[in-house]
């Protein structure tokens, strides 16, 4: 059951990505990442690495980043203890030469819980310009030391799905089929009434004959029971 469901959802996701092939443009995209671990309202950003998406349509990407240093991990742990947020700044450069700054964050404890595994999602608009860079981490909440200081980063590139359109074609086909069926039905149905419905009439007749034959008995039974 469960696996079937997963299969279905996989199918759905595949089909949705297939449906989403609305992107007319292709191009590259470069993200430079900065992050902040400090537990204050003003972030202090330090460089984290960069992501290069060579083709936005296929989503192929190369991630280059260094491992976390121990002071940073300690900072991250204090941040997680205070229920703080790990902030990431991404400066995106597109093939059209635009430079756009994005900011995203996630609870620091999730990052520790997943041992520095994170997902960077880049959403593009219909013109293949990035509109959102967001970070998420699948991990549970934890304030323990991660067993690695290396990032495990997945990059996902998403773009808008094509909007639905009213499905008139099937409807017209259906109407067409119904009309044809009706026409065919009308063409065939010029036999006589008896010819068409004999299979219903004959059993009914037999039943009537039989029941009429037995009814006096029933009546008698009724009468006799009355007499009781």
């Amino acid at each position, binding site marked *: 059951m469960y696996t079937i469901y997963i299969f279905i959802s996989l199918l759905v996701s595949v089909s949705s990505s297939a449906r989403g092939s609305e992107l007319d443009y292709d191009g590259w995209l470069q993200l430079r990442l900065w992050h902040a671990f400090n537990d204050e309202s003003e972030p202090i950003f330090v460089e984290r690495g960069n992501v290069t998406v060579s083709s936005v349509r296929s989503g192929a990407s190369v991630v280059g980043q260094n491992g976390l240093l121990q002071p940073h991990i300690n900072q991250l742990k204090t941040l997680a203890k205070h229920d703080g947020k790990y902030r990431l700044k991404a400066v995106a450069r597109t093939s059209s030469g635009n430079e756009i700054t994005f900011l995203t964050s996630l609870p620091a404890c999730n990052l520790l819980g997943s041992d520095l595994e994170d997902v960077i999602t880049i959403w593009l*608009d219909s013109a293949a310009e990035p509109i959102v860079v967001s970070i*998420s981490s699948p991990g549970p909440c934890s304030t323990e030391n991660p067993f690695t200081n290396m990032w495990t980063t997945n990059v996902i590139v998403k773009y808008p799905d094509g*909007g639905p359109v009213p499905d008139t074609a099937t409807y017209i086909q259906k109407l067409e089929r119904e009309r044809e069926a009706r026409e065919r039905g009308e063409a065939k149905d010029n036999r006589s009434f008896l010819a068409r419905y004999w299979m219903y009439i004959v059993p009914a007749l037999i039943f009537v004959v039989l029941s009429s034959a037995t009814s006096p008995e029933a009546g008698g039974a009724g009468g006799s029971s009355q007499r009781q």
Partner: protein
Amino acid sequence: MAPFVRSFRGNIHRFLIDVQILQYLIILVGLFNLSLCLYEDQVGKFDWKQNYVGKIKFASFDTVSAAKKIIVATEENVIAALNLKSGQILWRRVLEKGYAGQIRALGGVTDGDLVSVSGGVPAIVRAWDLATGHILHEWPIAEQNHDRIKDVKWHIKDGTLHHILPIYNSAVEVTSYDSKTGDKLKTRRVSAPFITQETECVLVAPYLACLKGDSSLAVLLLVHLFDTHSQPQSVTINTIFGAGAQGPYHLESVLGEEPIVSISADNNQRKRILLVGEVPVPIQRDIVGDATLYVVSVDNENILLETTYKNGVTEIVASELLTSKSMPNISTSVTHNSLLSPTIIASVCPRQTKGVTCRHLLASEDHSVALLQHNKLIWAREEALANVVAVEIIELPMSDRDQEIETEFDQKERDVLSMMFRRVGSQLKQAKTFLQSMLSFTPQQSNQRMDLVRDKFGLHKMIVLVTSAGKLYGIETRKGEIIWQLRVRGIRGFSKRSDAIILYVQRGSRHFPYPPQCALLAEDKQTGEGIVYTFNPITGQPLDGLVKLGYRIKQSMLLHVTTDDFLRGILIFDIRDKVHVYPKSATAIAASIAKNTYIFTADQTTGILSGYSLSYSTSQELISHKVWELLLSPKNQKITHVVSKNPIERVHSQGRVLSDRSVLYKYINPNLVTIVTEGVGHTHKNTLNLYLLDAVSGAMIFSIMHKRVRGPVHVVHSENWIVYSYFNEKSRRTEIASLELYEGKIQSNTTVFSSLATTKLPIVERQAFIFPAAIESMRETITEKGITSKHIIVALANGGILELPWMMVDPRRPINPEVREEGVIPYMPEIPIHMDAIINYNQSVFRVSGIHTSPSGLESTCLVFVHGLDLFYTRVAPSKTFDVLKEDFDYYLIVIVLAALLISSYITKKLASQKAQKQAWK
């Protein structure tokens, strides 16, 4: 543990299924008689409609036709005739919306016909029948200079329409048309080389008066428009004011029949008037700067009316124009609640047997219109209601008696004896009042109107309306009567957010003895800084009055927690990203929940959306820090809608049962925001993008794009679905698309949804439908507990208001009819409009700008208020009134049947015993 959990899950599962079945039963019941509609005898029972015309732009008295009336043209592009005696609308013609229907000139009433010029380039000239409002003629007027339409002046006289356009540095071009046929009669060019772009010109037919120069050397130049040979006359400012007047000067034409201009000087401290003619005559008398002027003729003598308003008193001083001799019998002074800095926009003073009686049509600053006749206000119309910007529907307070009971049980002490004493005491009091009312002694002293109390089913409520004029109204829902009105002067809507004014209910009327409280958030007219105005929504009394905040507001939010006195604070975010709380006393409570408080802002011009967290706040001060930021590049797209869910909405059912009895769980994210953008620029024109964004985590959930479609876009966002409408350019039809979000067959968190913990994206079902009418506005119904199925209230361009079941736009409507689910109708591309689902039947409402829905005390019933040019109120029951007996329930029949059964059983008993007796005797 595990089996327990499983069984618990299973229970929930079963419960959900049960709930679903219940819902489907309700739906089925609803389907069985798809008639959502009214019975004919229910007309006007739950609904009312009020017609308005809008802020008056032009007005004139129709003294020519048999039935005297007032013809008005308004800012809302309406031409209407008002009854002289009552102010009721005799007929009303609503022209095109916005720029295309803008009325530029109205005239000819004194000649017995009515000609209007409306629209942009080219304008449309329409001649109307004065008496009935039919159109007589219509023709478009050709315009050569498209960009100069706002400089064109129109003059309608004797069946001729003059189109007057100053041509810079050269002349004034006057083109005359026959106002009926549109034939071009004549084109003249009157030389006026002095007119430049900066020249201030007013039309005082048959002259054009222009003021040139700003200093004391300013000259007033007069051009006769119909005499090509005449030279411009010039009058220096000094001849009008004498020496010593200071600029800047301001030129205005004086309303009325005579060609007169007024010039104000000394920073609008004083003004003087000048009669324009072959020989201009200046009147050497100072008039106060803030007086508004009107010239009316009485017995062929011109009389100047000066209207001033001070401390609630409107004074109209009349004087002879030329001699300045005051005329006390025409001068009046009125104090009335519905006048606020009024100006006379039309006036007549006919000679009658008793003498001269003047009628003045006064238009106030707050858009209301009033007719003044001889010191008396005959009627007033609240035309501000034609432009409602914010609505709340608020419960009425309990009656005095219920409040007494409430106080009785509200005491903290739980001592038996004292409680009994109190009980007896209050019962005695009740008995006393009952006796008093029975014997009709002194009427009860009450601090409220007797009928303005909460009813059993919570159907009688108070609608609080905020209008663009800054006037607030309280309207009760039963009859639509205006209970109170309030003026807040010097405010305007947020200019960055298309003049929206925000209304919050800080405290409802359930917390006796604390009064209910509403707060208005707007901008100061002068400085653009934020203001808060608090008032009691039931009585219309100001509470804290107008509070100037001293900073500009970027975003605001109502806290969901209350202070000890049940007041919900307002979180205000200023443009420097500082967070404030109103009232200040709520800061501590706001700080206590700051850890989980997020604010997001969307800037339409820069396309930047940012999210802020308040987690670094201390109990004294709220500190925000940015946690996400994204950019919808204004080069490609323009944000048109940001729609979040109704914060009071409740979702009853967490999932949806499929045909195989499994549950598909809804993705119910309260932080989900729909953002709609329309493409800009050549390549992205006519594209529509819709983004679903989590406002807390800043994560994009879903995005969709439509090509070759355009607005108007209307979005409804509720529960786990979004329904939006747009116009499809390719197929040239209005379409409704619908999205529905599901988590899948497993719920990630059964108790509470967290934006930060959920990383899985939802499954999005989608479908589009053809809608066979143009849409003006859409809103979903809402009920107290969310059990009742949702309908969408759609205001149509043809004046109807349609109640569209959400089932009709369900994206899971199967295309293949073999796949059947409970309560799902097979897919059809076109949504039919059933006539009996038009909830306002033939009471068409035009120019709908918004729909407000509110739950009532009954789960089945939702209150609907539609505003636009007209106001309409009704109530709907999307799943039929399953929780009350039908109002046509036949009580008599059931009584008769019961009685008959009782009697017959008694009689048969008798008969049986008789029979038994007889048998025994045999």
